[in-house]
């Protein structure tokens, strides 16, 4: 959450000579991150990011308190001028004033602290220039003195305030949970049908007059005729506030503060400040006793932390004195005995500081992370590896890129249209509940549609060959889906080009795939296991696609070959041309040729003309040089085998 704070306002609470730039740098290193400083008419505006655990810093005093702790660590003098928590001499209740005029029914689970007071005879007018400037530079709209007081207090101290027009409230206030469908119009003229379980206030006319912690009701809003107001300062159950605010999408600053647990100890001091401001800015007077319903008041909590833990985590030999001083600077009272700190947590940090590690963080950041040493671990290196072979996965990508293919990354989430183009029914896809766009509605089961889209993205390119290694997602009942690692290669070149790529890839992996025809495509087998398919697609017949199930392939792959002894005897090469019957698959023919005799080392298809196919055959022996006499019987056997098995006719004579 970001807030804007003008330097001039900060200085009302912080005494320091440090320049805005210096303050920003120091805060960013040790506290909240100052993302930007803007110069505006002789002032500087800090844009500060406050983390969700530090609602105590969502205010000018909060930032001043941090700066007062941090700046001295950099050798810069800094002091908090006034703390809102210091007790004042003002009689808080106003015993001689009339009692609080409204009957109250408060659910304390919903409202841990409830305070309110009547301010009478106010005069609505613009606020003084200075307050208007503070608010405007903080990006808060100024309206009139009453509204400005609320906003001023909220930004100055981090406690949201509401002001009702007292005369518009009928007799009583019932603070309760809403029922589903109850209606309420907020100050900004929006009508809401409530989701239910929202904290609301009802008056004697059975009207809802406040959507607590989010925004007041229009029916009791302050207007130009308002004379008497109810100054209203509370804390609310953060869970309810968050739920209402998120459900209705009403992320007011008040809601964002309340949902993070505002300090209940802050309520009364802010109410008292409010009374003072009303007197000063509206000429109003306190018109009733203060009502303060606070059944479970804050009891300071303590945390014990050993000095050794702090030393271990910081990696330095910090002294107890140094730690103690850092804790003090943050308002953490502490005692040190038997090497252990007993630390009292101030109310404004009570929600955020719970365990010794929280103390470690406070000490480390104020000491300065930048001053801590930087060193690599000297502990044992783990050798408990998972099954994935990331190296080979990357190697496959590198080989494919080296063969001239381009790797792409396409989105795992696809549109309904793309999901429908896959071979799987739409219903069998994992559906996304809160899709950001129609483009991303389903988790894909097939990579093919996305890759056909990728080709379309490049209408001017002629020869496109893409590949990608990524998961597809397949539903399993009551379990996480199966995430299947696949390799897709996609090309608008020829089938034989793509097949050549696949064959080369398998050669690199020392695997011997078999391609078995299936309709227009081929199924790819390794050691009789189906591992993929290759062929044209149904949707776009121009595109050739190979799809491989990568995990079994990675498992079966050999990282090195089994070495075959080199023969010292020269090979003999010869070409044989066979006429094969039409529609004879060449794959099995070549396999048969290879297996026809042990001296046959290699078989290569070199030429095809109509039904005539020329094979270049390499014969080689490990034990002796070969000559034509020795080859002659083998040749006959080869021709006979092919004739028998494939009705192949040898062209020429033996």
């Amino acid at each position: 959450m970001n807030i804007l704070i003008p330097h001039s306002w900060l200085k009302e609470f912080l005494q320091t000579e440090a320049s805005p730039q210096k303050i920003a740098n120091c805060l960013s290193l040790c506290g909240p991150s100052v993302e930007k400083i803007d110069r505006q008419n002789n002032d500087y505006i800090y844009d500060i990011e406050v983390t969700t655990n530090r609602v105590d810093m969502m205010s000018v005093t909060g930032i001043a308190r941090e700066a007062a702790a941090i700046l001295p660590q950099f050798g810069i003098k800094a002091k908090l001028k006034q703390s809102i928590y210091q007790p004042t001499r003002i009689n808080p209740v106003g015993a001689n004033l009339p009692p609080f005029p409204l009957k109250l029914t408060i659910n304390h689970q919903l409202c841990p602290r409830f305070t309110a007071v009547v301010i009478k005879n106010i005069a609505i007018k613009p606020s003084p220039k200075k307050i208007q400037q503070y608010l405007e530079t903080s990006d808060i709209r100024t309206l009139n003195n009453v509204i400005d007081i609320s906003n001023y207090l909220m930004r100055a101290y981090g406690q949201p305030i509401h002001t009702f027009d007292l005369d518009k409230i009928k007799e009583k206030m019932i603070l309760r949970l809403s029922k589903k469908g109850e209606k309420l119009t907020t100050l900004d003229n929006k009508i809401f049908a409530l989701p239910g379980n929202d904290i609301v206030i009802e008056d004697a006319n059975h009207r809802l007059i406040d959507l607590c912690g989010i925004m007041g009701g229009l029916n009791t809003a302050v207007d130009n005729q308002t004379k008497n107001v109810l100054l209203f300062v509370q804390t609310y159950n953060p869970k309810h506030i968050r739920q209402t605010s998120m459900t209705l999408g009403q992320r007011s600053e008040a809601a964002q503060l309340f949902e993070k647990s505002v300090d209940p100890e802050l309520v009364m001091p802010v109410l008292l400040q409010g009374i003072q401001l009303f007197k000063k800015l509206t000429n109003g007077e306190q018109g009733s006793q203060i009502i303060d319903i606070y059944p479970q008041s804050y009891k300071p909590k303590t945390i014990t932390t050993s000095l050794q833990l702090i030393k271990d985590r910081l990696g330095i030999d910090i002294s107890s004195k140094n730690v103690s001083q850092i804790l003090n600077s943050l308002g953490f009272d502490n005692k040190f005995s038997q090497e252990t700190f007993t630390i009292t947590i101030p109310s404004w940090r009570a929600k955020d500081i719970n365990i010794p590690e929280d103390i470690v963080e406070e000490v480390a950041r104020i000491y300065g992370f930048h001053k801590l040493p930087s060193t690599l671990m000297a502990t044992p290196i783990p050798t408990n590896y998972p099954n994935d072979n990331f190296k080979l996965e990357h190697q496959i990508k590198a080989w494919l890129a080296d063969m001239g293919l381009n790797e792409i990354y396409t989105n795992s989430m696809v549109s309904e249209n793309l999901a429908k183009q896959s071979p799987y029914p739409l219903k069998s896809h994992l559906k996304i509940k809160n899709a950001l766009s129609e483009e991303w509605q389903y988790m894909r089961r097939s990579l093919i549609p996305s890759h056909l889209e990728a080709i379309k993205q490049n209408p001017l390119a002629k020869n496109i060959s893409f590949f990608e290694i990524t998961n597809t997602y397949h539903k399993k009942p009551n379990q996480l889906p199966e995430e299947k690692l696949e390799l897709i290669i996609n090309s608008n070149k020829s089938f034989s080009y793509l097949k050549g790529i696949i064959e080369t890839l398998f050669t690199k992996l020392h695997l011997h795939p078999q391609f078995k025809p299936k309709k227009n495509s081929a199924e790819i087998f390794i050691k009789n296991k189906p591992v993929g398919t290759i062929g044209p697609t149904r949707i776009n017949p121009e595109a050739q696609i190979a799809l491989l199930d990568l995990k079994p392939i990675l498992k079966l792959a050999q990282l090195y070959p089994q070495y075959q002894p080199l023969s010292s005897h020269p090979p003999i090469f010869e070409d044989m041309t066979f006429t094969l019957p039409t529609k004879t698959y060449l794959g099995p023919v070549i396999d048969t040729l290879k297996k026809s005799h042990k001296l046959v080392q290699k078989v290569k298809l070199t030429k095809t003309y109509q039904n005539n196919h020329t094979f270049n055959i390499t014969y080689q022996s490990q034990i002796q040089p070969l000559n034509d006499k020795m080859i002659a019987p083998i040749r006959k056997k080869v021709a006979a085998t092919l004739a028998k098995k494939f009705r192949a006719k040898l062209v020429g004579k033996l």
Partner: protein
Amino acid sequence: MQTKLLNLKNQALALINEAENKQELERLRIQFLGRKGQINQILKDLPQLDKQEKAKLGRLTNDLKVAIQSAIKTKSQSLKTTPKKTWFDMTAPGKSPPLGHLHPISQAIEEVTRIFEHIGFTRVRYPEVDWDWYVFESLNMPVDHPARDEWETIFIDTPAHKTMGKMVLTTHTSNGQVREMERVKQPPIRMLNIGKCYRRQQDRTHTVMFHQFEGLVIDKNIGIPHLKGTLDYFAREFYGPQAKSRIRPFNFRFTEPSFEVDFSCTHCSGKGCKFCKSGWHEVGGAGLVHPNVLKAGKIDPSKYSGFAFGWGIERTYTLKPGLNIDDIRLLYSSNLNFLNQF
């Protein structure tokens, strides 16, 4: 005769070695190997020998011939050939082999993997579609906690699991933290989890699908200096020897203390320029592992401590000096004009 042949061999090799030009070599070739050459002269006496001797000398002569031929060939290659005076254009383009490209994300992932493997990290992969338990709850983020707002979570339309909660797309690689503790069981742990993540965000600096890498180290007495050491090491390896890292306070529910991690700007060496925020680039989050997270992974926080860090591959990569990619959506565009540049 055997001695004669050996002498002849030595003589021939010496002469060939000293030859100064091709003409002389050719003369030597004729002198030794020619029809009326010295070898053949010696062989004139061959028919008078017995069968065994014949075979032996035959082999010897053959070896001699081969040796002389190969010496002449080697020498001839070493003698300068006079260049032919044909004109050729060495500035004309060469014949290129087909050129493919590894996607920049793969390149970055590989580089990150290598860097962390050098210091003993084990790369792992965990589900992209995971239970709320691993993505949030085991990381000390109870259901409906405001801290979850930071992650624009994408949910799967399926009934929630009784104990694991809703099914979501991982918003960060931190879902690997408790999973890795469950896998390894007993520290030491040095995990590098790289994976796809998803958030409901798409603009110039965010893509709805992106990649993160996550480091997790758990052992005895792990502290902030080890995290700083690891980040500095990564900065130097990935961005160059001048690069530095910096940690600033932040808040994550699953680490305590928590940090935001910055790397020094490589454009301006940390001085501040139009590319950076006063000399630094914010890249991601880190912290010491929260005791509750260790407990969720069944590791005793009184014995062990650890640190974790994680951030986007895309962000990390686009900060490379001089790369100048200002819209990371391009990475997922399948546009060849873009891809061909890598």
